[in-house]
Each structure stands twice: as structure tokens, then as C-alpha cells.
């Protein structure tokens, strides 16, 4: 059969851009229901203990505007919000494990009434000893918080013989690296509306990444069966992982209040509440050791990766797993030994954040690579070239890299773009320049540990006038996936982009499509759309062939001009649709895709954990003001092999946005906790990069297509947030001669270390 002809069309406009610039896109706060109440949450004032009672509960019930108060005793189903494990209570039963944990809920006529009622709660409690640090939580005499011996989860990699590898090495480097929390700071805070339905079911609308997770949580907490639950994602103001797990909690809370009052209930957090209670990027302590020959060939890598998962497990196992799978770096190393632990502590639970456990691991190994290059007296680009993964290399899990590995090309292009050369702290004067580099690889999708979710559905339905609706299960949250789905569908059917409308995900329209995470939308959701569109296109080919008197495989679909052609003649797409309707053909199809073949042996950590990898290299230049400690990133080139850019501007935007988040992670974003309590829950206390902190990131797109992705595309959402921090810290070393092994690396840290030098 002749393939659909795909030529670059003028496709640089996102499908959702127009409505968003008009100010009319409906985010959750713009969705109104008649008779709607507002919910607020009563939260634990202590990090660990037993809440005996809320002493003024009766008074709260009678406060102005209050219509309901709900506690753990009022939950009709099970008191569990299900994530990887079943340990997170929807409302604290009596024991609380972190400061800010939800204890009870209030619904009132106005937001102010609900919040002031919630704020007035007074508790009778008994406080328990608490543990806040992951390494402390490992000690045998540590307070027990969760899991077995406070371990939420443990994974390991054993490849070859590291002792032998280190014996063969001429040079050994080792370091311990620390990262603090990072907060998503999506601009739109968390929010949902729950609406009780007349048949006893419930509908939930909200800002979210994973409608099917929300659905599962609602079934569990309300006891309503699946068919009675409907979850619809509204236009979502950023997620970055932060709307993966948490919306399940908000949705269950709103649903409890809605069922109780039989009125729609909206819960939207204010920024402070969002900061205090939402999941974060895990703080981490990482020890890495590399051994290499004089020639710069790495012979062994040993690593220990400890992340602070907080009070409940949520997604920590997958974070710890992804971290350990990638921790030795994108290198072909014969001997690897790595262990990772996600620990339970009395801090706010950590969950998913763009990079998903790789950000911290990569920070450690890529900073250490720089130290190795220095010890070998070798250029850091050259050292990487001698070790990076290529087609045919083996990863730390023993996986053979197959097709589509553009790592070397990304490395060369990123370095070239900024004329990478080291300054070795030689700049005179107060402001010193330096350059740094890093490389990464990223297993796309959920991999072997998340295979259960590794599926997606889609429906393509062509209407009589040729307009098309696409129903999907993976969400648009700003990353551009609806545009990608639009392109895949239009290019397959051979219709204009404008004809295709991608609907908001709705759990009643599409089968469970797993979560929208791990940069999987394009690859997995895209394949489902492709599957559905192909089925309809096959029908159209038959119709056109019949009409034109040829065989279906003689028809060439020209997506650029929207025509079905053969040597005997041609029809426009719209004529074909017309004809299909006249013949009463089936013009809708369900698409499905599931990822298969991922493996991981729990004992040895060997296998093929992911089927596809994205490869990246970052090169940057910084300027360090040695008086103030201020670091300015002056140049940043980010090269990513993403297989194929389906929508170039979105791909560039993902790279630029992710990289600037990483600049914040490396240099600015400092969450301060004291005894498990967050001291700076605001955007002035915790500063994310503004336009003055960011530089113009130069995106470099490298395309080594992969057969499994639609049109060869791999995933892109997360990689920009993975390698960048190490490149920046390596550049700071190059400028100043000081190695910092932590993030955020703040001006005061730099001033302090520089002052030691000058003594």
C-alpha cells in the first residue's frame, strides 16, 4: 500500500493557542455550576502524632455559610487514595504523618467562609517523635513512619564485577551529592469540581494529568462502581508531574463533600496550601564512584541513591526505580553496582516531577564525570565521547541499544553551538566565565515497572462535513500533545489540520489510557490515534478506489492537498467522506496501543527496562560574580535526539521551558523546612526563574527516528529537566575552581566558598 504522503505543512500553530490568547480558555476556576459550594481542608498542625479530636467541630459546623464537615468516619468507601501502594489515607484516621496532612473537610457557600471555618479548627493531639531526613530514617533506631524499616521501596542493579572493574582502573573518583526539594509551581494551582449525578454517580472536572488515576481513587473512596464515575480534564495550567498523583486526593475530597451535601463542590487551593500539601521532587543523597583507565575508558561504576519519599509512598517506587536504572549515566560500562532506596519520613509526600528520579541521579553522575575528566586531564567532551552509548552498546541493565541513538550527535552539536572550551577559573576580574557540559539518556514511557499502565486508547470519528473528532485519554497540560494528536490524525486521514478537533479527555469516552507522564503521550497516545485514524483511512481508501475503479493499495493519500489520488484520477478528502457517508460506511474507529516487551529482573537489575530512549546533551556558559556569588547563565545549548519532531515549535518550547526549570533547580529554588514544616510556601519565599533569570536557551533538535513511535517520534517532555543542572554546576567549577555538589547552589554558598579560597 502506498503510504500517506507527509510533507511539511505550515503547521507551526498550536491547536489550543487561539483560544488561550483570547482569554476564554476555561480553566477549572472558570467552570461554574449552579448552586455550587466551596470546599476547604482542615490540616494537621504537627508532623507526626495522634489527633485525638478536633475540639470545636460542632462550632465549625455552625459557622456562617458552612453546609458540611466531613471526617475520616464519614467515608462511604475505603479510606485510601490508591497509588502504587495503598498507604495514603484520604483523610487522616487518627495518626498523622506529616505537617499539613488532610484531617477533615468543610463545605461552605463561599470560598472565604469555607477557608475561615477550616482555619478555625482546634485540635487535641499527642505528638510523636519524628524523622525528617532520609538518611536518618535508615538508622535502626529511627522512628517508624512507613514501609518496612521506613523503606518505601528498594531496587538494585548488578552487572559484571565492580571490584574487578575498580582494580582495572587507573583513576578512581567518588563523591556524595545532595539535592533539596523542588516545587512544581505550575501557574494554576490544584483545583477540581465534583458534581453529584441524579443516578447516584459522580462527575469530577479538574486540572489534572491522569483522569484514570482520579477515577480509580473515586471508586475506592466513594464505593461507587466504575460505571457511575465520570472524570473530565479541564484546560490545565501546567502540571510537570505535580498533577499526576495529587488530583486524586482533591477529587476524593470534593466528591465526599458533594455526596454529603448533594451539591456541586469546588476545591481550589491557594498558593500557600498548594505549597504545603502537594507532592514535590524528592530530596536526594547520591553517592557515585567511577573508575577509568588512563585512556579514559570507564571500567566500573558504583552508586547508592537515597531519596526522601515523605510520609506516604505515592509514586516513590517508580521514581527510585527510574533513578537507579539511569544512574551510571548514558555510558557503556562493563561493571555496575547500584542500589536505590525511597525512604519514609515525616515530610510532605514526594511524587512525580519532570525528570522523575533521574534529575537527581544525573546531577550526581554528570558532576562526577567532570571530576573524572579533570583527574584524567582530559577534555570532558572527549571523555564522554569515549564512553557514550551508541547503537550496539550495552546499558547498565545489559540492554543492547538498538536503532535510533543520536547521543554522539547531540554532544557534538551542543558543544559546537557555544564553542565549548574550558576556562579553568583563569578569568581575571570580579566576573568570571566558565563552561560546562552534561549528557543524559531517558527511557521513554513507564518501562517495565509501570507496564500495567502502558496502554492508551483513542477514538477517531469523521463527521458528515469532514470535520473529525478525536477522543483521547492522555491530557494536554501545556506540553502540546493535542497539537501532536491533531497532526497525527490529519496526516493519516489526509485532511486539513483545521478539520480535526481533539476533545478534552473524559473517562467515559475512552478506555483507560494510563497516566499522562513520562513523556509518553506522543509515543503511546499518538500510536493509539494513529491506529484509529488508519482504520478510518483504510475505509476511505476502499471507497475512493471503488469510485475511481482501482485497488485500495493504488490510492495515495496526499495529506498536503487533502486528496486521494491514483493514476486514474483523484478525489478530494471531502468528496471521499461524502461518498463514504452515501455508502453508509463505518467512519469511526477505536484505536489501541500497548507497550510490550519491557523486562527487569528484581534480583540482578538486568533486562530491557524501556523499549525506547531519548538522548540529550547540554552545554552552557555561566558568569559568576565573585563578590555577590550571583551566577548568570549566559549561554545554553540543549540538544535532544527525539526521533522526530512532530510539531517543531512545541518541541522547542518543551526544551526551553524544561531547561529554565532546571536553571531554577540548580541556582534559585530553595524550599526551607524546619521540623517538617515548610517555612517559605510562596513565590517570593521560593523563587522560580523570571524573565531576568532565564537566558535564551538554544534548542537543537536531532532526529534519529525510532520505528516504534508515530512517524519515528520518541518522547521529549522530561529530558530537558534532567541534564541541565549538572552542566551549570560544572560551568561554575570551570569559572571558579570550586566544586559544589548540591542544589540549589545559592549565591551565599558561592560567596562562602570563595572567601575560604582567599584566606
Amino acid at each position, binding site marked *: 500500500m502506498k503510504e500517506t504522503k507527509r510533507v511539511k505543512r505550515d503547521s507551526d500553530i498550536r491547536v489550543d493557542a487561539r483560544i488561550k490568547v483570547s*482569554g476564554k480558555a476555561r480553566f477549572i476556576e472558570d467552570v461554574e455550576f449552579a448552586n455550587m459550594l466551596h470546599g476547604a481542608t482542615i490540616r494537621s498542625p504537627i508532623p507526626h502524632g495522634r489527633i485525638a479530636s478536633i475540639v470545636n467541630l460542632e462550632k465549625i459546623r455552625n459557622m456562617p455559610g458552612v453546609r458540611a464537615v466531613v471526617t475520616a468516619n464519614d467515608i462511604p468507601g475505603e479510606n485510601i487514595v490508591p497509588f502504587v501502594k495503598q498507604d495514603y489515607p484520604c483523610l487522616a484516621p487518627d495518626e498523622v504523618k506529616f505537617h499539613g496532612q488532610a484531617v477533615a473537610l468543610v463545605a461552605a457557600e463561599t470560598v472565604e467562609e469555607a477557608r475561615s471555618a477550616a482555619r478555625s479548627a482546634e485540635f487535641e493531639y499527642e505528638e510523636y517523635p519524628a524523622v525528617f531526613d532520609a538518611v536518618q530514617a535508615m538508622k535502626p533506631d529511627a522512628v517508624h513512619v512507613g514501609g518496612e524499616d521506613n523503606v518505601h521501596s528498594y531496587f538494585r542493579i548488578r552487572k559484571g564485577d565492580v571490584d574487578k572493574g575498580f582494580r582495572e582502573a587507573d583513576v578512581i573518583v567518588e563523591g556524595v551529592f545532595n539535592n533539596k526539594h523542588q516545587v512544581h509551581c505550575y501557574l494554576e494551582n490544584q483545583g477540581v469540581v465534583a458534581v453529584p449525578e441524579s443516578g447516584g454517580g459522580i462527575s469530577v472536572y479538574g486540572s489534572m494529568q491522569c483522569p484514570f488515576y482520579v477515577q480509580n481513587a473515586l471508586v475506592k473512596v466513594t464505593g461507587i462502581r466504575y460505571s457511575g464515575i465520570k472524570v473530565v480534564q479541564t484546560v*490545565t495550567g501546567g502540571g510537570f508531574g505535580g498533577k499526576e498523583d495529587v488530583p486524586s486526593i482533591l477529587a476524593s475530597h470534593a466528591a465526599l463533600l458533594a455526596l454529603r451535601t448533594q451539591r456541586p463542590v469546588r476545591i481550589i487551593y491557594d498558593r500557600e496550601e498548594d505549597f504545603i500539601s502537594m507532592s514535590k521532587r524528592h530530596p536526594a543523597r547520591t553517592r557515585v564512584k567511577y573508575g577509568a583507565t588512563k585512556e579514559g575508558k570507564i571500567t566500573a561504576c558504583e552508586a547508592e541513591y537515597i531519596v526522601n519519599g515523605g510520609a506516604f509512598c505515592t509514586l516513590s517506587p517508580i521514581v527510585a526505580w527510574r533513578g537507579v536504572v539511569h544512574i551510571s549515566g548514558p555510558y557503556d560500562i562493563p561493571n555496575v553496582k547500584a542500589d536505590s532506596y525511597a525512604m519514609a519520613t515525616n515530610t510532605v509526600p514526594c511524587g512525580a516531577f519532570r525528570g522523575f528520579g533521574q534529575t537527581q541521579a544525573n546531577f550526581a553522575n554528570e558532576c562526577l564525570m567532570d571530576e573524572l575528566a579533570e583527574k584524567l586531564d582530559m577534555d570532558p567532551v572527549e571523555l564522554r565521547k569515549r564512553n557514550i552509548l551508541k547503537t550496539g552498546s550495552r546499558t547498565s541493565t545489559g540492554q543492547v541499544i538498538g536503532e535510533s541513538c543520536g547521543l554522539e550527535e547531540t554532544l557534538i552539536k551542543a558543544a559546537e553551538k557555544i564553542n565549548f572550551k574550558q576556562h579553568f577559573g583563569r578569568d581575571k576580574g570580579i566576573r568570571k566565565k566558565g563552561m560546562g557540559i552534561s549528557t543524559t539518556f531517558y527511557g521513554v514511557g513507564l518501562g517495565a515497572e509501570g507496564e500495567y499502565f502502558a496502554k492508551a486508547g483513542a477514538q477517531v470519528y469523521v463527521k458528515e462535513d469532514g470535520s473529525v473528532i478525536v477522543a483521547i485519554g492522555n491530557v494536554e497540560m501545556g506540553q502540546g500533545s493535542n497539537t501532536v494528536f491533531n497532526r497525527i490524525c490529519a496526516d493519516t486521514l489526509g485532511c486539513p489540520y483545521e478539520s480535526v478537533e481533539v476533545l478534552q479527555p473524559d473517562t467515559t469516552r475512552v478506555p483507560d489510557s494510563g497516566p499522562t507522564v513520562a513523556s509518553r503521550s506522543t509515543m503511546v497516545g499518538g500510536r493509539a490515534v494513529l491506529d484509529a485514524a488508519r482504520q478510518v483511512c483504510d475505509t476511505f481508501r476502499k471507497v475512493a478506489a471503488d469510485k475511481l475503479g482501482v485497488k485500495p493499495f493504488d490510492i495515495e493519500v496526499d495529506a498536503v492537498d487533502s486528496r486521494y489520488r491514483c493514476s486514474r484520477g483523484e478525489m478530494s478528502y471531502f468528496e471521499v467522506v461524502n461518498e463514504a457517508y452515501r455508502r453508509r460506511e463505518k467512519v469511526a474507529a477505536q484505536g489501541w496501543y500497548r507497550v510490550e516487551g519491557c523486562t527487569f529482573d528484581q534480583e540482578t537489575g538486568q533486562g530491557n527496562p524501556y523499549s525506547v530512549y531519548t538522548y540529550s546533551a547540554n552545554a552552557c556558559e555561566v558568569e559568576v560574580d565573585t563578590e555577590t556569588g550571583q551566577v548568570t547563565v549566559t549561554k545554553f545549548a540543549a540538544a535532544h535526539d527525539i526521533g522526530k519532531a512532530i510539531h517543531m515549535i512545541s518541541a522547542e518550547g518543551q526544551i526551553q521551558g524544561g531547561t529554565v526549570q532546571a536553571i531554577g533547580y540548580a541556582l534559585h529554588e530553595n524550599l526551607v523546612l524546619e521540623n517538617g514544616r515548610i517555612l517559605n510556601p510562596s513565590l517570593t519565599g521560593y523563587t522560580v526563574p523570571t524573565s531576568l533569570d532565564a537566558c535564551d536557551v538554544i534548542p537543537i533538535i536531532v532526529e534519529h527516528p525510532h520505528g516504534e513511535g508515530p512517524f519515528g517520534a520518541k518522547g521529549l517532555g522530561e529530558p530537558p529537566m534532567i541534564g541541565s543542572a549538572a552542566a551549570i554546576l560544572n560551568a561554575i567549577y570551570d569559572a571558579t575552581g570550586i566544586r559544589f555538589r548540591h542544589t540549589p547552589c545559592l549565591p551565599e554558598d558561592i560567596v562562602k566558598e570563595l572567601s575560604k579560597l582567599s584566606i
Partner: protein
Amino acid sequence: MKINFILNDNIVNIDIRPDKPLLRMLREDLGIKSVKEGCGRGECGSCTVLVDNKPVASCMVPAGQVHTRKVTTLEGLESSGEIKQIQDAFVKSGAVQCGFCTPGFMISAYSLLTGNPNPEREEIRAAVSGNVCRCTGYTKIIDAIELAAEYIRRFK
């Protein structure tokens, strides 16, 4: 308290708690939904509106203070040629991802470009430094404002 002011060229008379933030009054009492709350504390710029043609964070302005003044939001600029050019430039440049920050950025851009039709890139950076965007990394937003300036110059 009864106040009157001009909202997007219409006179509004309203009875309101004078300390209610302008943002909440616009959204809850006057149906103006392009104005977004990202923080409610003057930290993010997603609620930016024009008061007497100057960009301000509407979450920080008590409603009582706009009495007898002129408040302009995206809704009120719909007929303005400039905002149309800014919108086109944002769309064309890929300056919109999640879109939550977008109305605020466009108001700041509008205010900049009506005063300075030919700004340098650094001037644009400074003009939008009170607007936080967590998605784009700013490059494409600044590209868009440069492009909008060009469109507006051409259009005049």
C-alpha cells in the same frame, strides 16, 4: 460600599466590600474571567490588568481603590488593533503552552508596546519580569513581543 468606575469602556456601579481584591471582584462579581489567580499575593502577574492604563497586579488592589478610575482587561481590548497583533504574535511564536500566564503577559506587553513601539530585547525582559511563566522558559514570549512590535509598526 458603593463604587463606580469604568471597566472596559463601560460604567460600572457596584456595591462591594472595599477591601475585596479587584481580582476577586472582576472574576466573581463582574464575570471577567481572563484575569487569573496564580498566587493572590502579587507574586506572579497572572492577574495583571490596566488601572488608568498602567499594569498592576489586580490581586493586590482593594476594590475600593478603583472608584472613579479606569480598569482595562483583555476583554476590553478585543477591539484594539494592538492586542490583535500581540495575540497573533503569541500564537505564531509558540509563546503559549498551558496558557494560564498568557493574558497577564499580553497586558504587560500591551502596556510596554503602547509606550515603546520599538523595544530592545532587554527592555522586553524587564517589562515582563513581574510575570511568571513556568512553562516556556520565556524565550518564545520575548520573541512574540518583538514580533508584535514589528506587526504593530507595520499595521500603523
